[in-house]
């Protein structure tokens, strides 16, 4: 049994994969709490897809993919903010337009490259087994920055998420905080690209946080529980990926989904069973 557990990690690439998956699992889950509570899931997904052209341009220029992704993500975050605030469009409409256009642009750019199919697959679904030591450093540092900002301004982010009116009255600039959250989200997606890919990063943002939402009654606890679920999903997913020889990013997401389903049915207060029982009891 011990051998069964340790065997995968005798390979160095698997150790790096584990470290990268753990970082991404924790980071996505923590910031995902705000995504879930502010109903920003669509936005997260859109940001992820919008990163594609940035990655493609960087690839074509031979520049660092991470830098390309970062530039694109920030540009899209700014674009969504401007379109919806000044252009008089509803935010989801603005997101929908930018999201589809950026994805199409990304595919067009990547399709000019010969090794198109494999590259696109890696970007869409991640390639955690190909993480280099350098990648790991960048991932770790960016993740630390995002988590540090979230913790330092936890009180402000909590207030602006729960009650933007009070935040405004108390001089806490909810608009600035919202924009800062978009940038942090963009950074998170960039960090997650190699592990779970563009297609599945939205799942890592939403699923562990939604699971934690069902289990907790305070935001700080929700973030802690989400981080634990994200980390557990990363480990379980990697084992599944190793022993069943399936794509690791997808395995991690499915592990998180399994946790969500259990919580959805059996959570003490907000689960299906508890809500049924509460309804049967006279009020």
């Amino acid at each position: 049994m011990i051998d069964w557990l340790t065997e995968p990690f005798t390979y160095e690439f698997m150790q790096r994969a584990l470290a990268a998956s753990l970082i991404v699992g924790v980071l996505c889950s923590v910031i995902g709490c705000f995504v879930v509570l502010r109903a920003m899931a669509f936005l997260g997904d859109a940001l992820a897809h919008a990163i594609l052209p940035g990655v493609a341009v960087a690839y074509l220029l031979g520049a660092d993919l991470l830098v390309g992704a970062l530039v694109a993500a920030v540009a899209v975050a700014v674009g969504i903010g401007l379109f919806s605030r000044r252009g008089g469009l509803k935010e989801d409409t603005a997101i929908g337009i930018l999201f589809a256009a950026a994805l199409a642009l990304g595919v067009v750019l990547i399709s000019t490259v010969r090794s198109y199919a494999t590259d696109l697959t890696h970007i869409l679904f991640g390639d955690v087994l190909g993480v280099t030591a350098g990648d790991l450093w960048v991932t770790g540092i960016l993740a630390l920055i995002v988590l540090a900002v979230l913790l330092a301004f936890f009180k402000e982010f909590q207030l602006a998420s729960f009650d933007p009116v009070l935040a405004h009255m108390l001089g806490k600039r909810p608009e600035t905080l919202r924009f800062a959250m978009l940038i942090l989200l963009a950074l998170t997606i960039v960090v997650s690209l190699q592990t779970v890919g563009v297609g599945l990063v939205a799942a890592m943002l939403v699923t562990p946080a939604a699971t934690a939402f069902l289990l907790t009654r305070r935001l700080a606890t929700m973030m802690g529980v989400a981080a634990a679920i994200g980390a557990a999903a990363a480990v379980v997913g990697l084992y599944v990926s190793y022993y069943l020889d399936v794509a690791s990013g997808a395995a991690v997401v499915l592990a998180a989904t399994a946790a969500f389903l259990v919580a959805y049915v059996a959570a003490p207060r907000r689960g299906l069973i508890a809500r049924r029982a509460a309804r049967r009891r006279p009020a």
Partner: protein
Amino acid sequence: MPEPYLAIDDATAGYDGRPALTGVTMHVPHGAQVAIVGPNGAGKSTLFKALVGLLPLRSGRILLHGRQPGGQTDPIAYVPQREEIDWSFPVTVRDVVMMGRYGRLGWFSRPRSADRDVVERCLDELGIAELAGRAIGELSGGQQQRVFLARALAQEPHVLLLDEPFTGVDVSAREALLELLSRLRLKDITILVSTHDMAIAAKRFDLVALLNHRLIAYGAPADVFTPAHLTDAFGGQALFLNDMVVIDQCCPGHVGGGESHRHSHEPHAEPR
């Protein structure tokens, strides 16, 4: 009337298009309790949003103690309508009340023991100390309202705005709120309450402001609730029978004005 504490002068405010409020002039003395009444969509919420600085005035001005309100030590506290709050958000009662202290805390600082003392005192004042660790979504409507009242008191405000606090709560919560209002009289907090309930406005408030896009009447309840003013405010919805007024707020002309239509189906009967 003593020197005005809260002075609203010729204020015009509203979203795009026709302003929801035009040329409102209203002086509120220190420590007064004012009921703001009027039909749905009359601009009661707009007035509050202008007072808390969410909606900039198109013209006119608002002065509190001779200064423009706003900023970190804003002495105005606001209790929103219950529909505006996300009750499924994972926060405890104590967390919410502590948010009332955030205006006094810098961006990096954590609550100090003085802040925690104020929070506990406000929880006690509202009788919800034993609920402090519960999630807000688990409480009854009346308890939820008391959480937000406690938060407003934790701001140690000079002016307290309550948006439709008598709507959607049961009779005991309504009585508890009225009792709190009379206790707050001793603390010299100026209070503005928007309400559909004109019986409460007439019986329990010093001053009433009757609003319908403009200020129709403002003063003591007996001077405000006259047939002429009520016809002006409610039009055909006001019906005069002997010495009674019946106002039918069931089918207001401004449907979709953003205000709750609950509790407005029974006609309000007012003694005159």
